[in-house]
């Protein structure tokens, strides 16, 4: 018979505290990038 390996799962839960500050400048930057992409010189427009 195969030995039953009993792995004792640590009981107590992990406690994690996080502080998150969300910035939303991204879409404003991308708006500008698209401006360049759709300018006459880009060739794709």
């Amino acid at each position, binding site marked *: 018979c195969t030995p039953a390996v009993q*792995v004792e*799962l*640590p009981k107590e*839960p*992990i*406690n*994690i*505290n*996080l*502080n*998150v*500050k*969300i*910035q*939303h*400048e*991204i*879409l*404003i930057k991308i*708006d500008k990038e698209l401006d360049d992409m759709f300018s006459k010189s880009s060739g794709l427009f």
Partner: protein
Amino acid sequence: NPFSETFVSWPELLSASAGKLSAKGRFQLALRGMSSSTDFRKYLQNFLSAQSDITLSGIDGIYNETEFKKLNLDSRLHLTKGRVQTRIEKLDVEEANHGLIVGPIEVVAEMRTPLFDWQATEVDLQKAEVQVFDGKARLAPRVLQLNQPVSAELLLDNINLQALLQQYPSSEIQGTGLLQGRLPFSLDLSNRSNKKPVFFIADGRLYASDPGGVLQYQADSSALKQTHKSMELALNLLEDFHYKVLDSRISLDENQKLHLKLRLQGNNPKVERGRQVNFNIQIEEDLPALITSMQISSQISNTIQKRIQEKLQNRLNSNQ
């Protein structure tokens, strides 16, 4: 368009592009007893009476930065003794889009407005509901005085977390779960003179009902994991976090910063052999910036786009 000629104080930020307006009514002004010395205002107060039914149907239009579709209104106006009584039998809007797309909206209310003191309007709100994120947000019926800070409670039923996160302008987070909530808020319309109405939420609560759900946060820029070694475990856990408890306290302060105290309990089956984890996450979000981002990425009309660009332009210029 047909409407702007009829209404004298038509707010220039409101434009309607389709729909029908029909109004019929009686207007009486008893002239006997009128003499030159009578105070005309007091006279109007006592002797002017009018009654009219106003119905709007299928109105599409834009108010400021909100696009609305298929607005229908059944209302009865009754003016006596210097007070306008407006009975809104039915006001429903199929869809409103301010970046965040909601609808249908349903309102039933009665308004009592003193003829010469428009600000002192009293609104007896009997029903105010909106479908949002496959669930419902509604205001508990109450009487509101518009010239004082309005405090009310927004009740949220069966909000679908998945639908909510789909409208959130970031591809990094998905999730499932059904949320219930209570958001006590106050809105001060009276200080209209100096700036936009002040709106804040105090001690709101949003929690997931049983059996919970899944939260998946893919911080795909693995750089994030390297730079913050301590974050690595948290980020690994959050990649596929099966939660039993999701409970959050929400507040929105006067400078429109949204504070979320989120409590999460659950595990990630693939991390630490599925060991139980308790998260306490404090999130701060800049609500106006969030709304602007949603507006930029949402499907709203060109006129609103222009207004947003202007808003962005002067925001960029102001903090140059």
